[in-house]
């Protein structure tokens, strides 16, 4: 039962990172151009699905609370100010989709909110992962780090890294969904973003070695973990080929695979800890009666439906976004 909910949580977080990842990335790219046609094309590539993507964050949040209340309580209170910034960012970018088209004069406010909100949300998410890898100051199951206990140069580095990663994912989505100018620019950006991400990964690894982080020991103790980075490397090579051959579909899936590989690496190197290296999955799990109540209803029956809704939503809006057919 505990493992079932670990799996659901993992799937929800991974889906969130992949799905909202690309639309946050497009939000960041959106800030890099001033051209209204391009901006509009970028928005159209995510407009039908971004809301559903973000719902996976809520799914992850409530599963965490119901199935692992200790982790929910500890992490959310520890990351207080970080989460506040992330929520403000997500709200501003969420309303921007609608509000920017209501005004010409004030559009710059909503556009700023869209790009800025996306950047802040991506950065915070990367930073929290970094802080978790480094290890939060937790004594006897209670967070002791204060307001900025999660803030460190390593966490900032990871924040920048995830911004790069999401932007890469977003650029690949644009290649997949759009045409013309936007697609060309995305193609040009992808090599730089990929190299940037690679450099970031090398720096992170070097930092982890230099600081002698506990995660590194895990990697050395569990050599089979290198299976995941190898998948990532294969995906990266295929990414390079598909970019060179200008094939619109594969890059997104390759980058998604790289993300999944990184996610798997992290998840297994944390194992069996849920908050590394202080609270284990077993310690964090809610009582059996809670997990069973969730399992026999939402877990067994509703969760597959949610996946189905997502698949349907994406298949309805498959294919390239045609600017001419748009309603603005």
């Amino acid at each position, binding site marked *: 039962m505990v493992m079932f909910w670990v799996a659901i949580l993992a799937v929800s977080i991974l889906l969130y990172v992949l799905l909202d990842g690309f639309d946050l990335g497009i939000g960041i790219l959106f800030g890099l151009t001033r051209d209204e046609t391009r901006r509009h094309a970028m928005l159209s590539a995510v*407009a039908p699905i971004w*809301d559903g993507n973000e719902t996976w964050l809520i799914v992850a949040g409530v599963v965490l609370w119901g*199935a692992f209340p200790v982790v929910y309580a500890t992490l959310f209170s520890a990351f207080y100010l970080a989460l506040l910034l992330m929520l403000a960012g997500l*709200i501003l970018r969420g309303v921007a989709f609608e509000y920017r088209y209501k005004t010409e004069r004030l559009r710059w406010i909503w556009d700023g909110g869209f790009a800025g909100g996306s950047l802040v949300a991506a950065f915070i998410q990367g930073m929290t992962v970094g802080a978790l890898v480094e290890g939060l100051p937790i004594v006897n199951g209670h*967070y002791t780090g204060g307001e900025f206990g999660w803030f460190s140069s390593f966490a900032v580095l990871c924040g920048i890294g995830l911004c790069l990663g999401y932007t890469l994912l977003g650029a690949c989505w644009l290649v997949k969904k759009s045409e013309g100018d936007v697609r060309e620019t995305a193609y040009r950006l992808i090599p730089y973003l990929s190299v940037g991400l690679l450099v970031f990964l090398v720096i992170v690894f070097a930092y982890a070695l230099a600081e002698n982080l506990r995660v590194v020991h895990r990697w050395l103790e569990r050599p089979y973990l290198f299976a995941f980075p190898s998948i990532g490397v294969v995906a990266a090579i295929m990414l390079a080929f598909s970019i060179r051959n200008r094939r619109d579909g594969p890059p997104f899936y390759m980058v998604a695979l790289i993300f999944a590989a990184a996610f798997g690496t992290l998840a297994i190197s944390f194992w069996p800890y849920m908050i590394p290296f202080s609270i284990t999955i077993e310690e964090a799990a*809610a009582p059996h009666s809670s997990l069973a109540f969730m399992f026999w209803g939402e877990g067994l029956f509703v969760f597959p439906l949610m996946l189905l809704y997502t698949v349907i939503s994406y298949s309805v809006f498959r294919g390239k976004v045609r600017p001419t057919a748009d309603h603005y």
Partner: protein
Amino acid sequence: MDLTALLLSRLQFAFTVSFHIIFPSFTIGLAAWLTVLEALHLWTGRPAYRQVFEFWLKIFGVAFGLGVVSGIVMAFQFGTNWSVLARMSGPIQGPLLSYETFTAFFLEASFFGILLFGRPRVPPWFYLFSTGMVALGTTLSAFWIMANNSWMQVPVGYVMENGAFVPDDWLKILFSPVLWVRFPHMLLASYITGAFCVAATGAWYVLRREFASEARIMLRMGLYFAAVLLPVQLFFGHLNGDYVHDYQPIKFAAIEGRWHTQQPASEVLIAIPDPEAETNHHQIAIPVLGSLIGSMSFTSKEVGLTDFPPQDRPPMIIPFYTFRIMVGCWLIMLLVAWTGSYLIYKERIEQTRLLLWLTFLSFPLPFIAILTGWYTAEVGRQPWTVYRVLRTADAMTPFLTARTALTSLVVFCVVYSFIFAFGTYYIHRLLRSGPAGLLVEPSAAAIPNRPMSVVDEHRLTPAVRRAAAGE
């Protein structure tokens, strides 16, 4: 008063949840009313029903979007500010709220897309079905929220293990009698809110001599629904009073403004309570009625606040007044709805401008009643978060500083005011332009999950746009 982290966290929760509740309470009622309209349209084939449906669907979209955005914050806030509560009650509150996300949010999102853009693609019966599904989604969401809150009001079906609430009987939690009187109370409140907003809009159009046939439907259906629902609400309100009387005697005494135990008890209609002196000034009270309301008896003894130690009493003034404001709103709405229904029956409503004005101006009343009703329930539960088990002061994140809490409170206030101002402006613009704006067909590329995209200005005809700009 010191601005402690506790006070600031409570203010923040009160502010964000008050802001949030406005939108769901409106959309729950509106979704149900849209289902009725669509069924009427199918049944009678009258195009005006369709016209009214399309018009309110747009307004539904904006309110729904604001409800979603402000709801995300709620999912985080239990963990950030109330981590001790989150940890202790997570095994019960977590599963209840996860059921809300799983059963309601995805249902709403998928069928709402069909509602907005699927009419040309699905058969009429399926469109009606989708409308019903959205209404079901909003209702399920309300159910899980009420299940969660009712458990905090009257915790049942649990044992304490290792400092946490461990559920040992989910049936008790889901079939708590408290939940099954509070859920209908909230649902009715939402329906009345929808009915009054619709009636007020209809009255407004009649006063402005616009959209005559649509205004007629809105005014009639709104006032008729309200006239029927309001007495039912009184009945459920009374049942709510019964549960408070039986399970939360301190809250009951605070609402009643009863400081000292009485037998038989009188009913305080209005007074100026003085918590220092533990008495009421300028009190108007009716003898024996207090016993009758509390216990359906002429002789029962009813407890007063002074039977309980001061540290267990809620800040009495707030529930005392908010309850009376709620009941006052109910009374005014009842008068408006009954008089209005009578005039409609006599075919005189269009000429009675005073009543039209009253109906128009009464649209804030259901919202005020819902907010004050919630304040009565929630402030009256103090000083506990989980009634009689976990005090609010002990539920807060222990290391939260006043500075941090103040930062988040200010950020939420600024961001919410900002998006709220624009959101209400767009709803106002939609209401002003009226149902005629819908003569423009929805474009093929319009998309679900973007409810607010339907209010785009360019979709209105030029004449409507001029009207909207006040020319």
